[in-house]
């Protein structure tokens, strides 16, 4: 690289304040200092640790699901040592592991494990993941602020998150739930096994909702009130636009799931009869309530990922994001339309008119999403593109998310959905969107901002290897599931007819590569923390404000309140902070274009 990392002295004239990571005093008081901190960076790191812990738990459940599906469950005649023939159950890996008695009990264990996987990944990883960790850490810095608007509320959000997660873990320790993460009534309100398990799991999700609402509120106010001098709305990085849109959805939609889950608890404990058909209730009403939240929340999950991708592509291509305003407005447009498409989860349970309206609206929400993908790819044109781990992840995102988006078309169209609904096609589709979109963007963003967060570089070759393994493993695992779905494999099945076994085994092999990829990343990150070379303040040559401060940032983020002098992506006209203009030639042959203007 032609860049020279600037020294501390070039950045400021003050004495060294030390980074936010610098321990203050002995070990115990450092722990107390972290547990009571109101520094958004520490809270962001604490969220990161909590979210990754839950990701690990959810991942173990995912591996267990794939392992169980290696073979279908079958009764076979088996000759015993004493010469008699006995009918025994085979193929129920989890059943054998937990000493389940018979087919029903074995299937029940599988049902608990996939519920665990879904509930943890959705409520504890993907929904809070990016905003609470990377968002918390970078939203104030990218705005040029010292902290979020309500630092104490921010710490409270973290404790609420942990409390909610503890309730969920408590439910698992009690034996887990077998309702599916969607908690559909009347199964969840009457039949599901383990009374208190179900109540605790729902209570956990209910509590987690408050964490989302408070974090969202905090971010909205921060974005409105704490932008540094010189930063107008259209000078904000697109990551901020994405987090801002996400926060609006979270604040508006989360109360609905809160009320719904509370009603479900009342239904279970006191039999109020709002969802129970035996008491005149309507179980489909629950589905309407549930998806009225859970569809907007799909965009709570994906918008922050989209924000990360905008940053990754701009920085590593050194180009203004093509059509900045279109991308910003697409975020808001998606946020708005996301509230009126919930019915597309229910085409197999609604009347014709409602289905037609929701199908039409669903195609409407596809358009701003497609526009974003076009804009990202157009940004590559005539860029100066670095091939590194964050950029590889950005490309992986574009690849996987495009598949996720395009496979949404046959699900949005009514005739094809009535075949594909609740099949493995849906499973594959939402993993392409949720994991291929959000998780891939999250891991890409983590590599992009890792040097800034922890002040250490990581081994690029190993990180790229991890990325390749994750990409290959992901596609082998989930692309096969599209074929399973179209051929007739329903989702949430502990067993299956013989014809599906080959594709299931391919999918399971893919999951092992996926696991290996994440383990390589884990090793790379641990190696970086222990022995990684010190990171310069601006290793990639970014123009947004987080690259102006040190790596890792000082406790108050900036020595002086920054004053914005250039747009977030004005690579045509601006030498990035900490770069020597002599080493960073700008193209002067054509007049500059300023992003967003």
């Amino acid at each position, binding site marked *: 690289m032609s860049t020279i990392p600037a020294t501390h002295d070039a950045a400021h004239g003050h004495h060294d304040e030390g980074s936010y990571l610098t321990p203050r005093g002995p070990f115990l008081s450092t722990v107390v200092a972290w547990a009571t901190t109101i520094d958004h960076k520490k809270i962001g790191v604490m969220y990161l640790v909590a979210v990754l812990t839950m990701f690990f738990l959810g991942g173990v459940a995912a591996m267990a699901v794939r392992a169980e599906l290696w073979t279908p469950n079958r009764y076979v005649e088996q000759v015993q040592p004493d010469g008699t023939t006995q009918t025994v159950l085979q193929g129920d890996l989890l059943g054998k592991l937990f000493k389940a008695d018979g087919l029903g009990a074995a299937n029940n264990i599988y049902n608990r494990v996939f519920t665990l996987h879904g509930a943890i990944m959705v409520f504890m990883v993907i929904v809070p993941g990016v905003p609470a960790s990377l968002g918390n850490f970078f939203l104030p810095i990218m705005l040029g602020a010292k902290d979020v608007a309500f630092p104490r509320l921010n710490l409270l959000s973290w404790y609420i998150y942990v409390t909610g997660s503890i309730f969920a873990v408590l439910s698992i320790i009690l034996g887990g739930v077998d309702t599916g993460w969607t908690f*559909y009534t009347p199964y969840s309100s009457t039949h599901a096994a383990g009374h208190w398990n179900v109540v605790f799991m729902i209570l956990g999700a209910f509590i987690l909702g408050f964490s989302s609402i408070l974090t969202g509120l905090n971010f909205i106010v921060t974005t409105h009130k704490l932008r540094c001098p010189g930063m107008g709305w259209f000078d904000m990085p697109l990551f901020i636009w994405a987090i801002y849109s996400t926060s609006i959805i979270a604040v508006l939609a989360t109360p609905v799931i809160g009320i719904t889950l509370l009603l479900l608890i009342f239904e279970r404990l006191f039999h109020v009869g709002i969802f129970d058909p035996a008491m005149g209730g309507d179980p489909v009403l629950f589905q309407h309530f549930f998806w009225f939240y859970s569809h907007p929340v799909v965009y709570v999950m994906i918008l922050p990922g989209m924000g990360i991708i905008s940053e990754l592509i701009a920085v590593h291509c050194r180009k203004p994001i093509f059509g900045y305003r279109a991308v910003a407005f697409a975020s808001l447009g998606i946020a708005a339309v996301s509230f009126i498409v919930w019915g597309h989860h229910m085409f197999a*349970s609604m009347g014709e008119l409602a289905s037609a309206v929701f199908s039409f609206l669903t195609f409407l929400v596809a358009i701003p999403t497609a526009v974003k993908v076009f804009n990202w790819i157009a940004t590559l044109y005539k860029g100066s593109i670095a091939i590194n781990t964050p950029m590889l992840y950005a490309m992986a995102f574009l690849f996987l998310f495009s598949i996720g988006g395009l496979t949404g078309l046959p699900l949005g169209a009514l005739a094809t959905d009535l075949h594909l609904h609740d099949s493995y096609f849906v499973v594959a589709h939402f993993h392409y969107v949720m994991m291929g979109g959000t998780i891939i963007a999250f891991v890409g963003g983590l590599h992009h901002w890792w040097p800034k967060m922890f002040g250490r570089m990581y081994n690029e070759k190993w990180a790229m290897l991890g990325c390749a393994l994750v990409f290959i493993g992901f596609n082998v695992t989930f692309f096969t599931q599209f074929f399973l779905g179209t051929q007739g494999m329903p989702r949430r099945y*502990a067993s299956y007819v013989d014809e599906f076994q080959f594709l299931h085994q391919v999918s399971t092999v893919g999951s092992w590569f996926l696991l290996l990829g994440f383990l390589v990343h884990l090793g790379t990150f641990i190696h970086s923390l222990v022995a990684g070379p010190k990171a310069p303040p601006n290793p990639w040559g970014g123009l947004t404000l987080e690259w102006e401060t040190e790596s890792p940032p000082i406790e108050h983020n900036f020595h002086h309140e920054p004053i914005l002098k250039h747009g977030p992506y004005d690579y045509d006209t601006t030498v990035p902070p900490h770069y020597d203009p002599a080493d960073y030639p700008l193209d002067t042959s054509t007049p500059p274009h300023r992003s967003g203007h």
Partner: protein
Amino acid sequence: MTAYHFTTLAQDSGPVHGLFFRGDAAWDKGVATDSLFMWTFWFSTFWFVLLMGLMVWWVIKYRRRPGVPAPRSASHNAPLEVIWTVVPSLFLGYIFFRGFHAYIDKLVAPVDAIEIVVKGMKWNWTATYPNGAISPETTPLGASNVPVIVLPAGRAVRFKMYSDDVIHSFWIPDFRMKFDVFPNRYSSFWIQPMQAGETHWVFCAEYCGDQHSEMAAVILVVHESEYNELVARWGAAGGTPQEMGERAARKHGCFACHSIDGTRNVGPTWRNAYGNPVPLADGSTIPGDDRTVWDNYIRESILVPGAKLHAGYPNQMNSFQGIITEDEILWITAYLRSLSDHPLGAAALEAEQAAESESEGDAPANGEGANGGPN
């Protein structure tokens, strides 16, 4: 219990279609669904290859070279952005329209469809034929024995579905059709099996507990004559459903308020009611000409009488929730049909039942006769 040999459908729609589907769809409406799916697939493939091709090409072509800045280029282009917003929108509109069209075709059954009542329960399916018969046949599938639902080739079959407990979903992958099955109302769709000898999987597609993955059935398609003979043989001894409906109505005292000769009583008359629009007290109307709407209207009026109050009548009826059985509701519905001159009423009911009893007897009108015995 018979172990059936599972057939594989012909594969004439090309190798790519063959990757996605186990053979062609088993009826023309399913073929239309597949055609839309494949159209969407090639449309998606075109955009995906274009976008990924550009991405890879540009990343290689414009990879970073030390000391060489990115050339200045436009950071937005309004005409281009309008074009790439509007053009895909038109295609999406086209997909929406085709999807809606093929969906309506699959949901709205022809008037002469045979009605088969499907009951979902944890974890089994029961299919009841118009004469009250239930198929006693089962076959091994996966780790369980599952019921065999026998259907006649070439006849439209309408499933009227309800659940005894939680929500299930009745999915027949070969027909590209499913619909959820509810504990508090009927849902329905139709299919038309084409080829005698075919077998088709039925799976429960809505998670329903421990044995969700074992909640399957097999549809066996037979010649119509064979179907009629089997159903007649399995037939219930208690009389036709409308006769049982009349007895149930008598038992529950329905005639105290509802007349069957068209005269006005405390409640609306049952004569010529079924299938016709009903004006409601709140000013809205129950639309006529729709079996599902009417079946649900009857069911709801028995269980929650005040929910949809007939215009001009007082809200005086008590709920029969927990008093009347699901079977009795089905019989009373058949009874109301037998009292109606509407095309969906007595005529359609008799036609369905006549088709079934044909093989028992004396009118080998279709020339196939009664001797096409089961194998």
